[in-house]
């Protein structure tokens, strides 16, 4: 075989007959990667990668997710250590917006203040008369 690439011609490409049999999990475990874009911000999930241990995962994360653009810090977490809710259970959050008592909007006072002020004013006018 003659390639246009001299480097390829220098390789001994013949002894590669057993390559196409990568056993399961030979590419190790997967890690989830979190990037903190700048100091003071949240770490945000950006994707996953394969690595043999945490140190290697950090090196790969730097190469894969912090090649350009902003990155201040990286976290890697083994995927198997992440315990997640099932996305099919999302309906448990469906009535969140109905819980007005959990939000500042659930506490309205301006009507009462206006009414109070109006009453005060009226009282004052009556007394003056």
């Amino acid at each position, binding site marked *: *075989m003659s*390639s*246009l*690439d001299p*480097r*390829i011609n220098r*390789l001994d*490409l013949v*002894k*590669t007959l*057993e*390559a*196409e*049999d*990568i*056993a*399961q*999990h*030979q*590419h*190790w*475990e*997967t890690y*989830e990667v979190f990037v903190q874009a700048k100091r003071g911000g949240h770490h945000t*999930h*950006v*994707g*996953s*990668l*394969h690595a*043999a*241990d945490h140190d*290697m995962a950090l090196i790969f994360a730097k*190469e*894969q997710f912090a*090649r*350009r653009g902003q990155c201040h810090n990286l976290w890697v977490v*083994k*995927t*198997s250590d*992440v315990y*997640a809710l*099932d*996305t*099919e259970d999302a309906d448990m959050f469906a009535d969140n917006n109905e819980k007005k008592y959990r939000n500042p909007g659930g506490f309205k006072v301006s009507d009462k203040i206006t009414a109070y002020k109006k009453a005060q004013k009226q009282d004052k006018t009556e007394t003056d008369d």
Partner: protein
Amino acid sequence: MYGGGYIYDPESKNQATIVEDPEMLAAFEAKIDRGEKIEPTDWMPYEYRRQLIRMIEQHAHSEIIGALPEGTWITRAPGFKRKMALIAKVQDEIGHGQLLYAAAETLGKSREQMLNDLMSGKSKYSNVFNYPAKTWADVTVIGFLIDAGAIINQLANSKGSYAPYCRALKRICAEESFHLKQGYEGFVYLATGTPTQRTMLQDAVNRWWPPIMHFFGPADKVSVHTEKLMRWQVKMDTNDNMRNEFLEQYVPKIWELGITIPDPKLRKNLETGRWEYTEPDWDEFFRVINGNGPCNKERLDVRRWVEESGRWVRQALYKPNEMYKMPLA
């Protein structure tokens, strides 16, 4: 970088027909109709999963194989800046491959299995990478026009329904715009250079035009299958529409530099607003995709060599008791 229009993969004849629960299916389709994305742990029809795995996997293979014809030019890139840029680009392509393998893995096929299928020839990758990059001008044509085609395809796909694929494509598209600019700069440099440089570029365009026309794949057959892929937002547009979009955006950019395109029929029909061209040679396309192109063997041989040469490292670090889990998102 990516190749290609996606074509429905017919089910093996031995596979019994899978009947989906009509209620689940209706809920799934309603979710897509509402514009909601599908996450890995959501219920999804068997066919949706199967077609997506195949499509994302082909996309991933295209990235890592696509880096090979360009990688061969790193040592011979003209000038330091171009060499650095080409190294950065090749690294991006491999990174894209990793992102896409991870997205496909969330659907349940392991990376090991995907790589095995690539090397055995069971899985395909974009046909354009079965052609050699003969001169530096070929590298600029790939960087400009193939990446341009890839962006059209990927931007469309990034609006699809499967969330992990969309997330990966968002990252990928941002980097592709650097590739396109880098390729275009090299293209313009040669086109506005010496007569020898112009000739070299024209030759490369002539060589690459047929594969570029093949890039988006043959016209989609009008069928229930294609309709289903579009309905489920696996496929976002027809192959012909994407090819037309490519011609619309990039042919004027080639012509304005005085570079010709080796297709006497190529012109925009002002009435229909669509481009007309000589129908690409689809026999050649299928011949090459089935393993008989000029570089199929070299690409897979190199891939195998890499796999085998690096295996001892992976094995030395292998921990058999680790608990394996699919990537989450």
